[in-house]
């Protein structure tokens, strides 16, 4: 019965962040700008550090459900530090990640995830795209969509698309290293 449902086309979510426009980048890569147009996804999850009002406004045009959290370079007082979003059977937690020590560390992030009682933690800050499984939970990092400075030798522009099914999330990892590359990974809901 569950299989029958999973065959259907699920809702899509865009996971994106760490733009840092204009301090670290001038604009999204044109190859990404062409892909990211309104009404293609139902949700937008932004890990923070957008950097300016124009780009934030643009982000909000992409879907009717845009969720945004505060990055370490976001000055606005209106943005929350964390957010919880329920999509079907999936409980998502959203946080930029600069609040956690050490930054980008799966175990520390896992503790945070458990405290939020979430199934999936979406986080940024490191500027490196990553999909991790810790115990029965998942930690997703879209990296930096502009490929701005991230303290590493190289910074590759990236973002994620999530396809939500009842007990499954299909993750599409978009990276730009010369050409646009798409990797896939499947997350199964485990309680």
């Amino acid at each position, binding site marked *: 019965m569950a299989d029958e449902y999973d065959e259907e086309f699920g809702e899509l979510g865009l996971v994106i962040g760490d733009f840092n426009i*204009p*301090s670290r980048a001038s604009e999204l890569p044109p190859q990404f700008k062409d892909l990211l147009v309104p009404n293609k996804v139902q949700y937008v999850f932004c890990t923070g550090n957008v950097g300016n*009002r124009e780009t934030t406004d643009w982000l909000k045009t992409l879907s009717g459900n845009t969720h945004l959290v505060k990055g*370490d*370079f976001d000055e606005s007082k209106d943005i929350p530090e964390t957010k919880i979003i329920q999509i079907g059977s999936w409980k998502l937690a959203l946080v930029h990640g600069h609040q956690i*020590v050490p930054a980008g560390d799966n175990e520390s992030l896992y503790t945070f995830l458990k405290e939020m009682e979430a199934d999936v933690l979406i986080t940024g800050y490191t500027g490196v795209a990553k999909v991790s499984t810790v115990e029965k939970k998942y930690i997703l990092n879209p990296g930096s969509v502009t490929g*701005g400075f991230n*303290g590493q*030798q*190289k910074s590759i522009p990236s973002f994620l698309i999530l396809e939500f099914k009842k007990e499954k999330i299909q993750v599409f990892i978009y990276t730009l290293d010369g050409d646009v590359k798409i990797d896939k990974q499947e997350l199964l809901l485990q309680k």
Partner: protein
Amino acid sequence: MEEDQEKYLEDARKVVKEQAYFMRASLEKAQLKDALRYSSAMLSELKTSLLSPRNYYILFMQVFDEMRILENYFKEEYRRGRKMPDLYESVQHATYVIPRLYLLITVGSVFIQTHEIGAKVILLDLLECIKAIQHPLRGLFIRYYFLKLCKDRLPDTGSEYEGTGGNIDDAIEIIIRNLSEMNKLWIRMQGSKDKSKRERERLDLKVTIGENVTRLSNLEGVSLDTYKTKVLPKIIDIITSSKDPISQTYLMDCTIQAFPDEYHLQTLQELLKVCTTQLEPTVDIKNIFINLMGRLADFALNNDMGTFNSEVDIYSMFKQNIDKMLDSNSQIEFKNLLDLQVAFLNFTLRCYPSNSEYVNDILKSCCRLCERQNETDFTEECQKNIVKFLAMPLDTMSLSILTMNEYPNLMKHLPFQKRRQVAIKICQAVINLNQVIDDLKITGELLKFIQPLLITQNDYVEIPENEFEEEQQLVARTVHLVQNADLAIHNTILQQFIARFQQGEINRQKYTYPAAIFALFRLLQLIATQGGPQTQETSYNLLFEQIRGLIDVLQGHFPELALKLNLNFLLCINTVDQAKEFDEFSYDIGTQVITIFQDEIGDSNVKVVLLNQIMSTFAKLNCISGENFDTLAGNATQQAAKLLKKNEQAIGVMNAAHMFFNENIKNAQRVQECFKKAIKIANQSIGNNPKFVYVFIQILNKYFYFFEQVEFKEAEIQEVIKIINEKLPKALQDNDEQSKKIKILWTATQELVKERKRRSIQAYQQINI
């Protein structure tokens, strides 16, 4: 007056309706003579002098519709055997000239269809007859009636009337004569005393004239050659001989509208010459030009650009004529000439997209034009046009546009607000096109043009804060477009930007410096990838010192920003300096971070988050030597112990452990010290507040983080667990938000231990939870 008009029209329409009714009734009873009498009476209403042109038109249309019925009857009569010449003759018995002529035209149109006599014979005859009506309004309409009835009876090429009935030349001749006469009458129209009202009334009727031109363009026999040699010269003749600006403007427009663009392409020289030299001075030539350029640009883009370019040098033709207008002493207003230049530039950009020479030439003309003017001539409208002028090329051409020396000459005519607009448009164009800034000369010009954004110029005007932020962010974005494979040049270009930024004030540097700093980070990483600095200007020392200097400037006003930039600076050095060559320098930066944190960050909540970032960053560093790093990390730990709240202190000191145990360093002793200190602080507070047990649970989790790598005394951990178990019941008693948090974390912790025990991880076997 207005109400009178309404009444006159009502009355006339009533009569027409009445007489038309009787006419139709007579026709049904086949009483032609009576019908003619009634139609005469009906047509007599068109003799009136009472109606305004527009109202006359309305009456005319009503009569026209009724005359259709009569026309059909005439056709039927012919089929029944009535001789046309007889009919032609009998309608001439009508007493008054207007009805007589209308009836004649109607019969004539049917007569032509019989083919008993050549079309041209009748048409020319009719034209002669209607000459009798010289009253402007009535004459106009009777010729309009003639056109409408006879337009499908012309001896056009391939039509049924060609041959004995005439040929294309005759068809053209007839319409041209009609047009010429109608034009003369139109010009002579008197109407009201008020000039502008009179002009409006004339314009109300312009379609009657226009239909002649349209009919000409619909003639099958009017090929390109015929148009060129026979039609156009005649139309031009009519236009130029009239000396009436309204007529000239309208007829030019009609001609351009009615005939295909291919024809205009081939006769462009002629058209332009007429426009520039033979029209009345009050005719708005610029609109005609703009109209033509618009159509030809559309045509060029929808068709083969090759033909467009090779057959006729459109650009030169327009250029010559426009320049002629510029240079002549005509009374064309400055504003209009500017409009024209802008339209011409737009046309050129559309049709010759990559031709920078053309753009430069137009620029030169525009400059020449502007030089001749007085300051006061540069109204708001004119300024807007100059802004458009400067910004348009950027959307399609590369930055090389900026090297055209006429560019700055145009800018100087603009006040600050407008120069700022041009600067903003330039930045936007550069960013939207993703232009790479890789040339020194172009950079120099670019920076010159965006000066209104970079420094406070003499005629500076205050800008609202949000607009200021937007413009500065544009400038910041531009920096990241700097790129050159030769890193020495890359650097020199960046330095040009930075030099300008240094001249701006702190309110600008808030935006421009961070961008410059991150651009320098990127440059440093590129230098490292290439194996290190190749020139003196790109030495690490020089660039590091420069970055430090820029951050120092920001520190005065924006300490928190400076702190975060320093953290990123450390990470940058970390990727570049594997050999710890700049150990002392990095240590200084780290110390600076602590100093700013200690002395300049007031908000305690901000401090907590910042300290986490500081510790996270330090934990990544591999560019600082052992002793220096130990001092630095120790300082950070001390800062943790000085945070405002006890729980923040405990957690902070606990987190400090990560600085001493990570990829780069494995100092177990320091870790143990951190935990001891954290527990000590926690113990100081748990007495008063059972909910403090939360901190203990967090610390316990951190123990488990290091559990398999650092040796802790079993008793130490069990002590923590004991305290937790003791205080837990009281902490969870009142079931509030905090209690819930405690419960969630505690459950998770227990699960974690259970799971690790299950995986038979040695260290956990002894843990009793």
